[in-house]
C-alpha cells in the first residue's frame, strides 16, 4: 500500500475547507514531491468549484486554474501530486463519478467527509494504472507528521 505523507497543517486545512463550503463540495490541489512509497505533500491550494449548478454533489476545477496551479508548483520546485474534495453527508469513499472522471494517473485523490457541517473521516486513494483502460483506485495510507492515521480499509 502506498503512503501519502501529509503535514498536519495541510490535513487540517483540507478539513476546514470542507466545513466552510458545506453543504457544497470543496476541492483543491496538493503539491508535493514523489518518494518511493508515495507522495510527500508540501502545500495545498484551494480551488473554486466550477460546478455551481450542482455543487452539493459535484466538483470540478477549471482547467485554466490547473494551469496556474501547475505554474505555482513549478515555481516552488514541486509538482501537482494530487487533489482533494469533500463529500458532504457521504462517506469518504470514491464514487463511480469520481472514478470515471479521474485522469491523473499516479496521483493521490483525498476525500474528506463532512457530516452535518463537521469534518469526519479523511481518506486517500491512489489512481494506479498506466492507461485509461487499466486505471483503478488503490487504498492509500495517510501518514501525518510521521503518525499513521489509518487507511480507508482500516
Amino acid at each position, binding site marked *: 500500500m502506498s503512503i501519502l505523507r501529509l503535514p498536519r497543517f495541510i490535513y487540517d486545512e483540507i478539513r476546514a475547507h470542507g466545513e466552510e463550503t458545506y453543504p457544497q463540495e470543496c476541492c483543491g490541489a496538493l503539491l508535493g514531491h514523489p518518494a518511493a512509497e508515495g507522495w510527500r505533500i508540501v502545500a495545498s491550494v484551494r480551488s473554486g468549484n466550477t460546478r455551481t449548478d450542482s455543487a452539493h*454533489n459535484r*466538483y470540478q*476545477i477549471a482547467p485554466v486554474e490547473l494551469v496556474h496551479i501547475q505554474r505555482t508548483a513549478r515555481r516552488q520546485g514541486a509538482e501537482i501530486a494530487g487533489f482533494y474534495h469533500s463529500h458532504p453527508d457521504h462517506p469518504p469513499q470514491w*464514487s463511480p463519478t469520481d472514478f470515471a472522471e479521474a485522469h*491523473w494517473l499516479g496521483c493521490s485523490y483525498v476525500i474528506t467527509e463532512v457530516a452535518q457541517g463537521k469534518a469526519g473521516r479523511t481518506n486517500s486513494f491512489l489512481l494506479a494504472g498506466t492507461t485509461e483502460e487499466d486505471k483503478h483506485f488503490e487504498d492509500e495510507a495517510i501518514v501525518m507528521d510521521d503518525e499513521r492515521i489509518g487507511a480507508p480499509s482500516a
Partner: protein
Amino acid sequence: MNILISTPLRPFAGGQHVLQVEAGTVGEAIRALTGAHPELRKHLFTPEGKLRAFVNLYLNEDDVRYLPDRENTRVSAADSLSIIPSIAGGTGHPGGRALIILQPAGEAEIWN
C-alpha cells in the same frame, strides 16, 4: 516553445516537466512532442486520432479548443503550451435531483 507536461504524463515524456520544441503552430508542437515521445500519443488521442475529451491544451492562458484557428494557431518561442487532464467528480448522489452527467468539452474535432 515550451511544453509543460503535467504529472500523469511525465512518465511518458522521459520524466521531464518541461520540453522544448521548435514549432510554428500548436499542431506542429504536438506533433514534435509525440514524435519525440510516441508513448504520449495514446494518452492524448483516441484511436481515431481525436484529442481525448479530458485532455486540456492551453496555449498560455487560452484553451486551444476555443481559439479561432485551434491547432493551426501560430506560436512563438516565448509561448508555452500546457497539457492538463481535467479534474472533476463528486458523490454523484442525486439527492432527489436528476443525476447530471458532466461532459465539459466533448472530443474536439481537431487533429483529424
